[in-house]
């Protein structure tokens, strides 16, 4: 027999008391659950649609004003940086106690159609769509020759605007990608493509990177004005506004070794000025794998282990604030974040550890590794020689 939810109502099972008991419990919890669900449902407010429409209009106005403010802020930042660094070679920021010295390039954050303000860059709705497009089966992608870089180094070039995350209800701006070939045997053409980890907003400690393979879902960037892409901005779309297309995506298994180039936008924080700045570094897949492992180990030292030993999240936060632990430290940028992580090698990463207990929320678990999501794949580019660069955006803010 099937009820309205389509689940089976089982009949009695002779002589099996355990199953009878299980069925009774299942029926009880089912009934409790239905009541708990019904208690939360409520009709739509009568003025709901009106409120949505006015909120939408307000957002459009605010967005226009914010865009002007961002342009002004970037212009001021550029002015300040240029003024401070007349030699044009970079600025040395005094690191927190116990950290390694880091020399930072003086490039301002990229100015593109995809603002990089990471306070709002994690809009997960860019991953949603319906109907779900077909995904072409995974292939393993690696070129045969190791690339030149063998360890992390400050990037000397700007990263492409399409390698950053579109945020704040805006879209990327630029030229569309080549189409993703439907045939997995056909290599990706030269160009840049959107990349995400399948069914996830990022990479967590429990994702399958430990085996040295990173699975990415690749999509093309296409013009919003074509009407077939996921776009977040308002219509009419600018001619160069881009979103990700609905064409079939492709899964690619990227072997994290020295044949793959990775480019990571991390963050630093100038505590004295309470300001964030870009830290762009490039390395190899092997470097990235080592970075993940370091981060996992550091998290275990600073957070996972203490949680396992019954230390309260607030106490862990207090301890990290007092002393750098496993590379985690308080950079003293209260407006932006409470913690950052400084690896032995590689870009520093903002790491909001969410070390709080919030009433009504499940307690923080040692394996949550929440901020390991912070190293977030965004794009893949393929150059004329077939070398792949995987771009990452590191350091989401809470």
């Amino acid at each position, binding site marked *: 027999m099937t009820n309205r939810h389509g*689940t089976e109502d089982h009949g009695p099972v002779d002589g099996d008391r355990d199953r009878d008991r299980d069925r009774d419990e299942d029926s009880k919890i089912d009934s409790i659950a239905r009541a*708990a669900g019904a208690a939360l449902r409520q009709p739509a407010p009568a003025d709901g649609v009106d409120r949505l429409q006015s909120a*939408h209009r307000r957002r459009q106005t605010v967005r226009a004003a914010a865009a002007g403010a961002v342009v002004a802020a970037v212009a001021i930042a550029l002015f300040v940086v240029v003024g401070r660094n007349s030699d044009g070679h970079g600025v040395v920021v005094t690191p927190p106690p116990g950290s390694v010295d880091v020399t930072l390039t003086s490039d301002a954050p990229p100015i593109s159609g995809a603002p990089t303000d990471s306070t709002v860059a994690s809009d997960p*709705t860019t991953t949603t769509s319906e109907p779900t497009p077909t995904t072409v089966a995974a292939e393993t992608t690696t070129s045969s020759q190791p690339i030149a870089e063998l360890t992390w180094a400050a990037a000397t070039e700007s990263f492409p605007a399409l390698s950053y995350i579109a945020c704040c209800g805006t879209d990327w701006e630029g030229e569309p990608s080549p189409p993703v070939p439907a045939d997995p045997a056909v290599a990706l053409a030269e160009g840049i493509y959107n990349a995400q980890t399948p069914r996830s907003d990022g990479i967590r400690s429990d994702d399958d990177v430990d085996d040295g393979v990173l699975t990415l879902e690749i999509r093309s960037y296409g013009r919003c004005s074509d009407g077939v892409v996921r776009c977040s901005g308002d219509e009419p779309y600018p001619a160069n506004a881009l979103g990700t297309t609905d064409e079939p995506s492709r899964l690619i298994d990227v072997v994290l070794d020295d044949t793959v180039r990775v480019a990571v936008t991390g963050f630093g924080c100038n505590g004295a000025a309470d300001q964030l700045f870009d830290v762009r570094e490039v390395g190899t897949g092997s470097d990235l794998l080592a970075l993940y492992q370091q981060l996992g180990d550091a998290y275990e030292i600073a957070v996972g282990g203490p949680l396992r030993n019954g230390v309260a999240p607030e106490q862990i936060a207090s301890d990290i604030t007092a002393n750098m632990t496993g590379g985690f430290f308080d950079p003293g940028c209260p407006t932006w974040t409470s913690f950052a992580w400084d690896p032995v090698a590689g870009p520093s990463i903002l790491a909001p550890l969410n070390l709080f207990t919030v009433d009504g929320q499940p307690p923080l678990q040692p394996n949550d590794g929440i901020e390991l999501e912070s190293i977030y794949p965004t794009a893949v580019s393929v150059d004329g020689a077939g070398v792949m660069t995987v771009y990452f955006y590191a350091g*989401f803010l809470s």
Partner: protein
Amino acid sequence: MPEATQRVLLEHRFEDVYRREYPSLVAVATALAGDDGEDLVHDAMIKALVNWKRVAVLERPGGWCHRVLINRCRSSWRRRVTHARFLARQRREEPSSPGPSADVIAFWTAVRQLPERPRLAVTLYYAGDHSTAEVARILDVPEGTVRSDLSRARSALVKELGV
């Protein structure tokens, strides 16, 4: 069809979808995110409104709204923490309003401790009042997976709640 007529039809259809889906959306959001539920539904429906020309032509616009909402709920933890920090700095308390009963809160608190996929399955099934087939479509998993998740989740909840 004249553009003005098309626009009116689109607006009407949005309102229909809004009224039809709201009870389920708000229940799912409240179950997953607590007091922020209505705000998350508001955000998700603005997203639907902004993209309505594309969403309206989908076979199941409600399913799209649920997927957007679930993604919003996933990221609400960070906003919640930020909010908590902000309140701590401001040293003030939010006005309280009457909410669900203690039993209902206990149930959904237990649900929030389930792993993600069973948690979403339970929420969409019981709070959202969706069939297992609908839940499977929203989560993009086979229906058998949803049934199995629900079964395991019920067992876990029996233990957790001492039913």
